[in-house]
């Protein structure tokens, strides 16, 4: 499974979460949600619950870790951070993504040329 890191990712939601957390900070679910909404213009997430579902699935795969803490507003919140395993997945995925983009980039001009 580790040799084919892309296959278990059903969509790009997990990748987005990994990227969001990849900056290195701990964030609670709502903060991650706001961040993704902003950076994708609300395009990706239909139901907010889906994000939490994804977070828990990712925790089960050990891509993220979580802890309970108190938020800046003084509320009890569950904080997520990316795990070493998550970083490997993210790196491999970004690598693959950039290869894909590169490949597409190589094809596109030729097509444009015809």
């Amino acid at each position, binding site marked *: 499974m580790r040799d084919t890191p892309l296959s278990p990712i059903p969509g790009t939601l997990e990748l987005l979460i990994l990227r969001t957390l990849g900056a290195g900070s701990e*964030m609670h679910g*709502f903060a991650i949600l706001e961040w993704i909404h902003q950076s994708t213009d609300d395009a990706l997430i239909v*139901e907010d*619950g889906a994000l939490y*579902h994804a977070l828990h699935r990712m925790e089960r795969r050990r891509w993220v870790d979580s802890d309970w803490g108190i938020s800046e507003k003084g509320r009890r919140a569950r904080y997520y951070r990316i795990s070493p395993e998550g970083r490997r997945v993210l790196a491999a995925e970004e690598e693959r993504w950039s290869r894909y983009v590169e490949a597409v980039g190589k094809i596109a001009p030729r097509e444009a040329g015809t």
Partner: protein
Amino acid sequence: MAPRRRLFRLGFGRPGPGRQVDWEIEHYLVEQTERLMAEGWTAEEARREAERRFGGLARQRRRIVTVDWTEHAMRTGAAWWGGIRSGVAQAIRRIRRSPGFVAGIVLTLGLGIGVNGTMFGIVDRLLLRPPEGVAHPEQVRRILWRGMWLGRQGTIPALTYSDVVDLRTVPQFLSVGAFTSTRRLTLGSGEGATEVRAVLATADFFTTLGAHAQLGRVYTTKEDGIGAVSTVVLGNEFWRRRFAGDPDVLGRTLEIAGNSYTVIGVMPRGFTGVDLTPVDVWLPAVVARHAMDSSDRFLTSRGYYWLQAVVRVSDEASAVAGSAAATALIVNARTDQVRRGQYDANTRVFTAPLLAARGPRASATSKVALWLAGVALAVLLIACANVANLFLAQGARRRREVAVRLSLGVTRSRLVAELSIEAVLLAGLGGVVALAVARWGGSLIRTLLIPDVLWQGSGLDGPVLAVTAALSVGAGLLAGLGPALRSARGNLNRDLLEGGRGSSAGGSPVRRGLTVMQAALSVVLLVGAGLFVRSLHRAANADLGLDTNRLVLASLEFNDPALSTTRDAAEVNRLYAEAIQRVRSVPGVARAAATDVPFQSAMIAHLTSPGVDSLPVSPGTGPFYYSVTPGYFRTVGLRVLRGRAILDSDGASAPKVALVNENMARTLWPTKQALGQCLYFDHQTECTTVVGVVENASTGDLDDTGALAYYLPLSQTGYAAEGLYVRTDRDPEVVAAAVAPVLRSFSPAVRYAQVQSLGEILAPQLRSWTLGASLFTAFGGLALLVAVVGLYSLLAFEVAQRRRDIGIRSALGASGGRLLRETLSRGTALAALGTVIGLAICLLAAPYVQQLLFHTDARDPLVLVVVVGVLLAVSGLASVPPALRSARTDPMEALRVE
């Protein structure tokens, strides 16, 4: 990003997955609502919108929780599985590394668990499981009554046939069956005659129990009536033994007690009726009553108590109501007896559980067995304490290893799991040993100590296996969990630095406590052993009045019904006289005499004496009469205290004479001489003169010499002799074997002779003390051994742990003698403390054990002193080797290590 404080530091401090998801969703809803309100939504609309955006609250929650639960389950499962696997691996490694340690644990636990499995098997048969082959046993009850009997308030099962007939009319009793206790009857005649264990039972006995024949059928009510053809149903074990399980046995005839019976059925395996004793043949009670006595008094009289009864009732309430009705019937039928003072008007009939051991007439054997089951638990506790001690010692030695593993990140709970699993595995091996113990020990106890119960199978049935398995796991946890927790709790830094040595012998206070407990329990068990051994000794040598040591009892059976019904008393007495002559010439026979009242029975006749107003006649205190031949007193070993014995000259035509026993002399003539007084016996008008006073004797019950009794010449009463006493001058068993063929062949009129030594007859009465004495001694010895080994290993361990300290002290000038004394006194102090606690337990338990003992005080000082002496001596011996080692410690060597 945002600064935060941690809520939970450790993983296992978290609440369950469901709660966490709820918290998280709530956080989302609060934040979202707040944001929406900032955009201008009202609070209520904002909340609703937030829930909508989350998307199906319940559905989402369920999805998320499902994810978490699989995660949760996988994580715990993996931890457990890992723990189990490495526990097993650890155990195997250890078995390889220290087989001695493992063998010690396995053997100790195996013996401890084994004695429990054994005792459970016995208690299960005696007290827990209903008798085999009884349908809905909870509905079947025994009939008992409470009232005066043989001079004492008693709880009695005996009924007359007329009483049973009355019970059948009680509407609450759905069905009533009657049966006799097991008796030995002659099978066949002449040379090949043997004895069978027979029970006479009414036909409705089988219907009441719901018991059916395995082969053929049981007899019907019609077949158990006067004049019916004689039928017999065989016990399964007898059928297999005697007829090799031949199905063609049906229709064959057996000659039992002189009558022929046609075999019509075979009962299923294990069927023994309601008592647990083996039964060879079941005979119809009415038809076979002649096997017991001749006359039809057995069917009509209210004075011949030869039956017991069981009833089937639908529930407890009808058992109570039925008992009240039965009481009225049985007491009202005896108004005459009550008026004459021969029957207790306050007699109450009641019902009792089917298993005798659970009712008010529980046998002493079953009570002792129950105590022994408790004692077996104590043995297991001692064994567990020892094993825990071994584990603690092991743990202390392995402290460094544990510390290293902990520092490498192995969690403590995993370590505990591992160590406990190891303990349970070792206990499981112990369980295998235990099965062997239960198998062989069990069959030994069954055949030697409780032979009068029909045991089925090998003793390793389902319940015993289950109990053994449960005890193995339990004992493993009990012995292993404490030490495991202790090991995992160690102080990392200290343990890593000090290694396996440890200066302060960690765990020693606990280990000392365990050792004290072992000593205490050993004392309790040994005191129990001492009490039972003393009881057995006293019961075996009990003063029955009779000198029972070298006495053989015989009785003749005759071919001619006129003789066996004792109608022709003169001929019977002539045959007995001839028998006496013949027997006297057998080597080893010193004397012989006959009586009309065999051992363990008692007869009452009408008796008056001038000047004595009311003779206290009762079925309890007598006066009982015995017609005897000359020489009777010297034969049975009764001393004539005053006057003379019965002589040959006291013939039928001579003046009538009698001897009374001391009790009777004192009761009838408290102020006068008994000699020369007049008795009127059995409505005779002729005065029977008292010519002697004889010492008191028991009627056969070990604990009874209270009855009034008088003795008449057999030739003057004209009653038929029914028994023959033979005094021997050597081993009575040997003489009995020599007497038997003589009595069976001296006359063609004699069909068979039963010959038994008195020791054999009294053995069942000694059984409970034999059982108690043997097993208490065995368990006590085992407990002492385990405890002493425990004490030894504790001291040896302490000396080894303190080797460095001892070395320093020795280097500083402490003498070997002083070091020796110190270790010795430490061992003795532990044993002494345990002894004091053990003695306290004994004194507290004394009132409960008292009833099981025979003429022995439960606080018998001799027993207590001996046990204390033994324990202190043995524990002193166990302390010597470690003490010597401590005294011989070479300071240089001790300090050089590490």
